[in-house]
């Protein structure tokens, strides 16, 4: 994958992620982690090669199909990306409203997912009234509310102190234990080492290490 005015951002790589797996995507800053996640969410299109996500072929995705893909993905960012003029509840509800969920089902679903991330009592708070860790939990709740089979997290703990960081990571592990596939980009090796999850290490746009050592000819995530 090459950026319009850049060189190849990620190249020569091929991997497959199974349903319900937890995968770390590691590497130094600029290694290409975010690029991989953007490719998976069709925010970027591969300039070469093939990429399949949950039955969608990213290279051939039409503009109409992108929203369909996105509804099968939950995406979490380092900077939370919450709407500042909406409460935690409204931020989460937004993800349901936008996808045309039945209005009468929204409050219950929002409450359920806020409870899941441990914020049942903070639903009425605005992002500025929440700690970083709490804001990221709102971000995760928003990503989860549509029950996606895949959760993508780009440095989800990058802006958090150690304690919040551990809490958020534990939450992601719990979510994965519930059957959701989690792909988490991070450069915090402390988190990576504390578990036995699969690790994909990037360096200068290439995959240099796969703890599963299972390389398959097609580049892909499913």
């Amino acid at each position: 994958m090459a950026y319009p005015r850049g060189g190849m951002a990620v190249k020569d790589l091929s991997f497959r992620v199974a349903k319900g797996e937890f995968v770390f995507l590691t590497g130094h800053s600029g290694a290409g982690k975010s690029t991989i996640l953007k490719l998976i969410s069709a925010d970027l299109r591969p300039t070469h090669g093939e990429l399949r996500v949950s039955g969608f072929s990213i290279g051939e995705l039409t503009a109409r199909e992108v929203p369909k893909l996105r509804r099968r993905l939950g995406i979490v960012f380092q900077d939370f990306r919450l709407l500042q003029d909406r409460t935690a509840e409204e931020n989460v509800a937004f993800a349901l409203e936008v996808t045309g969920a039945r209005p009468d089902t929204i409050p219950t679903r929002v409450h359920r997912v806020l409870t899941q991330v441990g914020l049942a009592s903070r639903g009425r708070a605005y992002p500025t009234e929440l700690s970083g860790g709490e804001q990221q939990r709102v971000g995760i709740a928003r990503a989860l509310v549509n029950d996606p089979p895949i959760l993508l997290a780009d440095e989800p703990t990058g802006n958090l102190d150690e304690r919040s960081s551990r809490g958020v990571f534990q939450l992601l592990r719990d979510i994965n234990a519930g059957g959701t596939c989690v792909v988490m980009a991070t450069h915090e090796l402390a988190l990576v080492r504390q578990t036995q999850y699969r690790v994909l290490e990037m360096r200068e746009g290439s995959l240099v290490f796969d703890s599963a050592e299972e390389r398959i000819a097609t580049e892909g995530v499913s």
Partner: protein
Amino acid sequence: MSLLTRETIRSFRRAPMLSALSITTIAFSLFTVGLFGLVAVNMREALRGISTRVQIEAFLLRGTPPETITLASQDIAAFPEVEAVVYVDEDQALQRAQQELVEFKDAYRDLQVNPLPASLQVTLKEEYRDAASAAAVARRIEGFSFVDDVRFGQEWIERLDRLRNLAGFVGLVIGLAFAAVAVVIIGVTIRMTVLQRAREISIMRLVGATDAFIRGPFLLDGALKGLLGGLLAILLSRAAFELFRRNSTTGLHTLLFFEPKHLALGILFGVAIGLGGSLVSVGRHLRNV
């Protein structure tokens, strides 16, 4: 309340200055169109007044039997272009001449023989008061054997025609120019709104909103601003109209304001400008967010 309206109100509330700016720019653009419109409406009304004087005079040969004239009058009155036919006999012609041409009053009084011929005064229906129709009717009247001469002031009718066309043309061009300006301004303000809401839009995208869904509030927003701008423009036009009417010392007491259907058209135009501006701008800028 539907999601669409809620999101639209949110966008209004979040950017009150920008919203106010959009509405006032639409209002002032439409107001300018409105002022030219008022001038055009009143000019047309004035021209209409003048055009009632478009008249064809058919002078008759002396000694034409009255029955022939009556029959011919009926024939002419049945022409599709003709509104009315009035017969003016020699005596009436002389009386009129003495009244209207005061300078010649004495000359006419001393006459032993009336030199003026009898005539048929033919007026045309409103939509036919132009040079071409007048000439066509005149030619047909000339065909009657007892008609000596036909006059209809061709030159000034042609001048009236040109004036009418010019007024319509200038009004249209200026109107379109200002409408284009308004569309551009709306486009710019919508673009600013899109940029201001770029983050929100990217988050909507992220959670799987379709482009149609994202566009919805912007379009409603634009249409609403157009509507409010249109209403404001009408208020401004009315105010300007009253101000002008009160301060005008000329004899123009019959100044006209727009008819309700023109006002409705103006509002519709405002909505169209708002929608058009949003459509163009949202289509172009959403892709770059």
